[in-house]
C-alpha cells in the first residue's frame, strides 16, 4: 500500500514536470538583468528533485518554482554562485547538482572518459611499435634465392 502511494506521488510529481512553458514565470524574475542572468545560469545547473532529468529552469513542478525563488533570494541576499550551490547542496544533498562534484565516489564518472582516451592512444602507440619491429622479413634461404633468380631472369631479357 505504501509502495502504491509513493508510486502515485512520484507519478503526480512527474506529471507536474511535464506541463511545460510554465517554467520561469514573469513574477519570479529579478529586476536587475545581471542578477537574473546569474539566477538563470545557476538554475540550469540544478536539478528539479521530483522530475526526471530536468533542471529547475526547465521544470514546471511547484518544487522547481520554490527552488527558483530560493535561488533568487540567496542571490539578492548577496551570495556568490558558489555559496548558493553550497546552500542548496547542504539542504537537498548532492542529488540537486546536475554536474556532480569531482569526489571519490564520482572518480570513475569523471576519470573514465579521459582515461579511456589516453589508454586508446597508448594502445595505438604500442601497437604501432610492435608492428614496426618485425617488418624486416626473414632473409631468403639459398634455395629460395635460386628459385627467385630462375623466375626473375627470363623477364629481365
Amino acid at each position: 500500500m505504501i509502495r502504491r502511494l509513493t508510486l502515485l506521488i512520484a507519478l503526480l510529481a512527474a506529471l507536474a514536470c511535464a506541463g511545460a512553458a510554465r517554467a520561469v514565470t514573469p513574477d519570479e524574475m529579478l529586476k536587475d538583468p545581471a542578477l537574473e542572468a546569474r539566477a538563470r545560469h545557476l538554475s540550469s545547473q540544478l536539478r528539479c528533485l521530483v522530475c526526471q532529468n530536468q533542471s529547475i529552469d526547465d521544470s514546471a513542478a511547484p518544487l522547481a518554482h520554490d527552488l527558483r525563488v530560493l535561488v533568487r533570494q540567496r542571490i539578492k541576499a548577496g551570495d556568490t554562485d558558489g555559496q548558493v550551490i553550497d546552500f542548496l547542496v547542504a539542504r537537498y544533498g548532492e542529488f540537486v547538482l546536475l554536474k556532480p562534484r569531482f569526489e571519490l565516489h564520482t572518480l570513475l564518472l569523471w576519470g573514465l572518459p579521459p582515461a579511456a582516451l589516453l589508454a586508446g592512444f597508448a594502445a595505438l602507440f604500442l601497437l604501432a611499435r610492435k608492428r614496426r619491429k618485425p617488418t624486416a622479413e626473414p632473409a631468403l634461404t639459398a634455395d629460395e634465392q635460386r628459385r627467385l633468380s630462375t623466375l626473375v631472369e627470363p623477364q629481365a631479357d
Partner: protein
Amino acid sequence: MIAELGHYALVLALALALVQSIAPVVGAQTRDAALMRLANSTALMQFGFVALSFAALTACYVTSDFSVATVFENSHSQMPLVYKFTSVWGNHEGSMLLWVLILSLFGGLVALFGGNLPATLKAYVLAVQSWIAAAFYLFILLTSNPFLRLQPAPLEGRDLNPILQDIGLAVHPPLLYLGYVGFSIAFSFAIAALIEGRIDAAWARWVRPWTLAAWMCLTLGIAMGSYWAYYELGWGGFWFWDPVENASLMPWLAGTALLHSAVVMEKRNALKIWTILLAVLTFSLSLIGTFLVRSGVLTSVHTFASDPTRGVFILAILVLFIGGGLALFAWRGPLLKQGGLFAPVSREGALVFNNLFLTTACLTVFVGTLYPLALEAITGEKISVGAPFFNLTFGPLFVPLMFAMPFGPLLAWKRGDLPGVAQRLMAAFGLGIVAAAITFAVAGEGSIWAPFGIGLALFVMAGAVTDLVERTGLFRAPLATVRLRAAGLPRSAWGTAVAHFGIAMTLLGIVFVSNWAGERIVALKPGEGVSLAGYDLTFNRMERRGGPNYREIAAEFTVRKGGVPIGTMAPSKRDFASRDTSTTEAALMTRGFSQLYLSLGDTEPDGSVAIRLYYKPMVLLIWLGPVVMMLGGALSLSDRRLRVGAPKPAKSALQPAE
C-alpha cells in the same frame, strides 16, 4: 477474433524462429545445402507472420476494439485516424511488436537479397538473426502480450498520451527502431564470422550497406525526436541529455565508428578484429537502449525492482547476447588474421583517430547515463548527471574529431602526406579563420567559443568542398575533364563529402543557438506587445477552440518587422479531458534558417497571460544537418560496388567452416 489471430501468428513466428535458430547451423556444420536453404524460407515466413500479427493489432486499434487491453489503455474512439495508427506503437507492448517486425523484416531482406553471400555465412547470419528474434518473441508473448483481452469490454478507451499525439512522434519510433534493429545485421554478420573463424574484405562489403542503411534511419530518427522535443515540450531546447536520448545516441556514435572502420577493412583488409568488436558493441548498445527505455530502470532503480518481470527478462536477453557475443569474440577473435599495415599518418590512421574519439565519446555518454544507476544500486547514494556534465565532457571530444574530419578523406591510404594535405586545406582553414575573426569582431565580447565554433564549422564545410574540388580537379583541369572526373568519382566519395558537410551544418546551428538565442518571458494583456531581435509582436486576443478529442485556448499575435506585418502566431494550450492532462502547442515562425518560437504559460489573475518568446537563430540547421548526413549516406549506399555486391570467390559456396 482478429486479436487471437495476431497472437497466434506471433506464436507461429516463434516456432519458425526456433527452427531457423538450429537448422541452418546444423546445415552449415554438416554442409547440408538443403538445411541451409531452409533458413531462406523460414526467414521470409517469419516476416510474413509477424507482419500479420502487426496488421491484426493495427486492425484492433483502427476499429477501436476496446476489449483488447492495450487498445483500451492507449486509444480513444474520437482520436483522428492517423493517431489510431500511430498509437499502435505509442506504448510498450505495441512498440516491442514493431521492434520484432523490423527485426524480421531485416532477416527477410538478408534472405532475399543475400544471394551472393557464401552459403555457410548466410546460414549462420540468418541463424543468429533468429536467435535474437526468438528471444524477443518470447519476451513479447510471456511478458508484454499486446493481444490480451478485457472482460467485460470497456465502452471507451483511455486515449493516447496527449504529448504523443503528434505526427513527429509518430514517425520517430519506427525510424529509431529501423536504426537500432538494423544494427542487428552487423551483429549477426560479426557473430557468423566469429563462428566461422574467417573474415575478409568481402565481409566488410556485405556488412556496410546494412550498417549504412541502419545508420541513416537512426540519424534521421534522432533528429526527428530532437525536433519533436523542441516544438512540443515548450521551452525550445533541442537536446536534453535525457537518458532516453542518450540511449539512442550511444548506438549512433558506435555505429558511426563502425561505418568508418568497415571502410578500412573493406579497402585495406585492416582493423578486422576491431571492426568485429564494434559490430558486436553497436548492437549491444541498441539492446541496452531498449533495456533502458523499456524496463523502467530509468525512472528509478526502485521502480525497476518493484515490477521486475519485464526488466529482468530484457536484462537476461542483454546478458545472453552481449555476454555471449563478447565471450565468442574473446575466444575466436584472435583467430582472425590481421592484414594491411599502415603508417600512423594515412587514411587508415585518420579513421583510427575517428574511431578512438567516437568510441570515447560513446563511453562518456554510457558512463554518464549509467553511473547514477550503478552508484545508487551499489552504495545507495543518489547523484544526478545532467546536461552540464555532458556538455563539459562530450564537447571537448568532438572538437578534435571535427578538426580532423577534413584531413581524413584527403590523406592517401597506407602512407599519407600530412604537410601536403595541410597545404591543400589552406583555403578552407583560411576561411575558418576569417569567419572566426569576423564573428569575434561583430559579436564583440562574450564567449570565446562562439568564434571558435563558427570557424570550426566553416573549416569542416570548406574541407568537404575541398575534398570534391581536389578529386575532380576543379580550377586546375579543363572543365570537360572536371565533368568527366566528377561523373567517374565513386558515389561513396560524394557521400563522404556530403555527410561531413551535414555534421558541420549541425555544429553551426548549435553554435548559433547556444550563443545568440534571445528570450523574453513576460505577462501580456490583449493589446500589449513585446519585441525581440527586431520583431515586434502584438497580443491580439485569446480564443477558445474545440478539437476532435481536446479543447484549446489559443492566443493570437501579430508579428511585425520594421512596422510591416509579416504574419500571425497562435500558440495554444490543449486540454485532453480523457486523460486530464494538457499540452502546450508552441507557435513557430520560420525566417530563413531561424525561427521565432512562442509558447503560452499560465493565465494570471489580472487577465494577462504569461508568454515565452524565443528567437532561435539558424536553429533549423541543427536538423537539416542530419538530413544532409542522411543524403550523404544514401549517396554512399547507391555506390556501384555496394549495389553490385562483393565478387564471389570461385569456390566460396562450400568452403569448410574451419
